[in-house]
């Protein structure tokens, strides 16, 4: 890549003639690897916009040096992501790696973070096991078990005895299913059927038929954002919304990015998640308004808020270490406690994972638009997976 070679030459020339102090003028780079194309492109879009918003709001200089984001598309494959991460570390000399839309991509990159002693901020991937893959990983997104606990307990407390689960057949889906089943049955409920839907699924008909056969009180759903719309439409089309089966889910199904376009089929769905664009706090209202302005009307979703908070963690960390990276930066990231647009959050100093409030929300129409309105919450929820 021409840029890298040119930079090498320039850096070498500078080092040769400039005094030591001149090195302090080098930019601090953050390597942001996101899904900018392919089926998860909307995730990348949201995080990209959020990180840029943070820098625009809070300035992109720290300790006298400019901070620059190097954005790369992950191409959806683990080995390409790993190679890009390696190149960012070795050639572009990034201080921090960030992003990571899918679990295998994060897992493949983890050894690079460890080997290069570069902190890695996971802003999207949600499988529990990621945090153990490297001691340099910090997470600002969420884990599926963390947000599923809420709805499982809510269901048990609100009179549901029989709930069928329906999840997408991949890592996060299975995590969600396992957590729900264990928590719900612990609270005395029964799960008569556990349905797994292939990721590439065009039609939900057979699975919804199985749901009808099982005659449950409720249906718990996890689907990656985007697929949820199809599902909701078919759920309503079969009259299931009027059949007494309550639809509960994790917030991925009622993703703020597309919630408003879903239409009335989404009304009344109860979900548990860590962020809603309707969260009532001054910080969030400012965040949503400025995000909309910067992106021509897009509503921020839970990925955007992870990107925003991730930048905050990185920038405050760099401030504390005066621009140093490595172990020092990692230590400065651990233990941060602050108010995020989603509520109060903390990066656990021991596990480096995110501890946050999980809200129970219901989809309602407010001011003509659909929002997830929070009506209950669990405070300071940790990822329940055994460490």
């Amino acid at each position, binding site marked *: 890549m021409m840029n890298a070679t040119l930079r090498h030459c320039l850096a070498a020339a500078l080092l040769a003639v400039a005094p030591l102090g001149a090195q302090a003028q080098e930019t601090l780079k953050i390597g942001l690897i996101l899904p900018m194309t392919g089926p998860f492109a909307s995730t990348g879009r949201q995080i990209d916009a959020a990180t840029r918003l943070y820098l625009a709001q809070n300035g992109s200089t720290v300790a006298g040096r400019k901070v620059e984001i190097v954005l790369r*598309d992950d191409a959806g494959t*683990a080995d390409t992501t790993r190679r890009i991460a*390696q190149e960012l570390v070795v050639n572009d000399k990034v201080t921090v790696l960030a992003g990571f839309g899918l*679990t295998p991509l994060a897992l*493949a990159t983890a050894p690079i973070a460890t080997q290069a002693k570069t902190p890695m901020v996971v802003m999207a991937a949600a*499988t529990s096991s990621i945090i153990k893959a490297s001691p340099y990983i910090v997470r600002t997104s969420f884990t599926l078990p963390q947000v599923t606990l809420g709805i499982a307990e809510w269901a048990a407390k609100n009179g549901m005895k029989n709930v069928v689960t329906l999840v997408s057949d991949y890592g996060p889906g299975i995590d969600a299913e396992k957590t729900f089943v264990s928590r719900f049955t612990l609270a005395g409920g029964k799960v008569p059927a556990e349905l797994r839907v292939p990721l590439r699924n065009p039609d939900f008909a057979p699975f919804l038929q199985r749901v009808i056969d099982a005659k449950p009180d409720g249906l718990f759903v996890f689907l990656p954002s985007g697929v949820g719309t199809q599902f909701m439409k078919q759920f309503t089309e079969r009259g299931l919304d009027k059949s007494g089966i309550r639809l509960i889910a994790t917030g991925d199904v009622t993703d703020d990015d597309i919630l408003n376009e879903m239409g009335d089929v989404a009304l009344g769905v109860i979900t548990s998640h860590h962020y809603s664009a309707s969260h009532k706090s001054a910080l969030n209202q400012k965040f949503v308004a400025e995000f909309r302005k910067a992106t021509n009307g897009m509503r921020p979703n839970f990925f955007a808020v992870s990107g925003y908070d991730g930048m905050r963690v990185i920038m405050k960390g760099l401030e504390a270490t005066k621009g140093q990276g490595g172990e020092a930066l990692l230590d400065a990231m651990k233990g941060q406690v602050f108010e995020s647009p989603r509520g109060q959050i903390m990066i656990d100093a021991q596990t480096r994972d995110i501890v946050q409030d999980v809200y129970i929300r219901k989809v309602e129409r407010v001011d003509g638009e659909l929002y997830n309105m929070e009506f209950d919450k669990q405070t300071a929820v940790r990822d329940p997976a055994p460490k």
Partner: protein
Amino acid sequence: MTPAGSSPSAAALSASARWRWWEFALLAAGLLSWLLLPGHALLLNEIAILALFALSLDLILGYAGIVSLGHSAYFGFGAYVAALFAKHVLPDPLLGMAAAILAATGLGFATSGLILRGSDLTRLMVTLGIALVLYELANRLDWLTGGADGLQGVVMGPLLGRFEFDLYGRTAYAYSLLVLLAALLFCRRLVHSPFGASLQALRDNPLRAASIGLSVRRRLVAIYSIAGGIAGAAGALVAQTAGFASLDVLDFHRSADVLLVLVIGGAGYLYGGIFGAIVFKLLHDAISVLTPQYWTFWLGLFLVVLVLVGRDRLVRPWTWWERRRT
């Protein structure tokens, strides 16, 4: 009987098997790139692996005329075998490579019965189906493969006991280059032999080939298995140099990419895969650095222009506006 080597066909074969100047130049370029471009070893490693994968596809597509949209099945199978071997048996890369090649050849042999008959479209769909089934199997057997999360805990031992796989990727690139070279030499020998000539005969006209006594079935099975083995070697390289294997090694887009690469470079002369891999990867990387979101547009445009203008005319810009001599 006339002694071997003096008949006109034998003479023709050995003439075509002679090393050309550009083959030497290519080898030299490979060696020099390892020496002079240490900062790009990672990207070059990816190119070498893709080139190896494309080489295996060239054997069945360019030489035997089998159109495959599911070649990632053997690639992915080799990757998982190598990763599992390193995790559960021995972390030695060369032994793992051998295991992967054997396993992938076996899989190629086992599935070769399915591609013996049918038109281009049939083979396209059957091979695609095989790859999709394998993908779902890997997803289903998540206790073995790690499922969608991928197979973790693969720690590779040093190559030949001495060379560790480092962060800069130099060992990885050298390893991939050597495997590519070995495969290239093997394939060269193969296609410039009577066997190779018979393959081209049956690609061009299976009916005539069968009528002069060539066993079409046996040759197809043989070349398909060999191609499977070499694809498995490429997959093993990916798993070993990345220390990780996940479902995307079996994904459809890998089959589609390798087909594109081979068609870009030209099928049927063994080096198409290498040139195509270089062009495709460099373009993809360069464009996606410039525009991480919309690189598919420019890549698509490149492909369309490439086909409309024609590969050989592309490198001679003054011929672009000449009327095509059909």
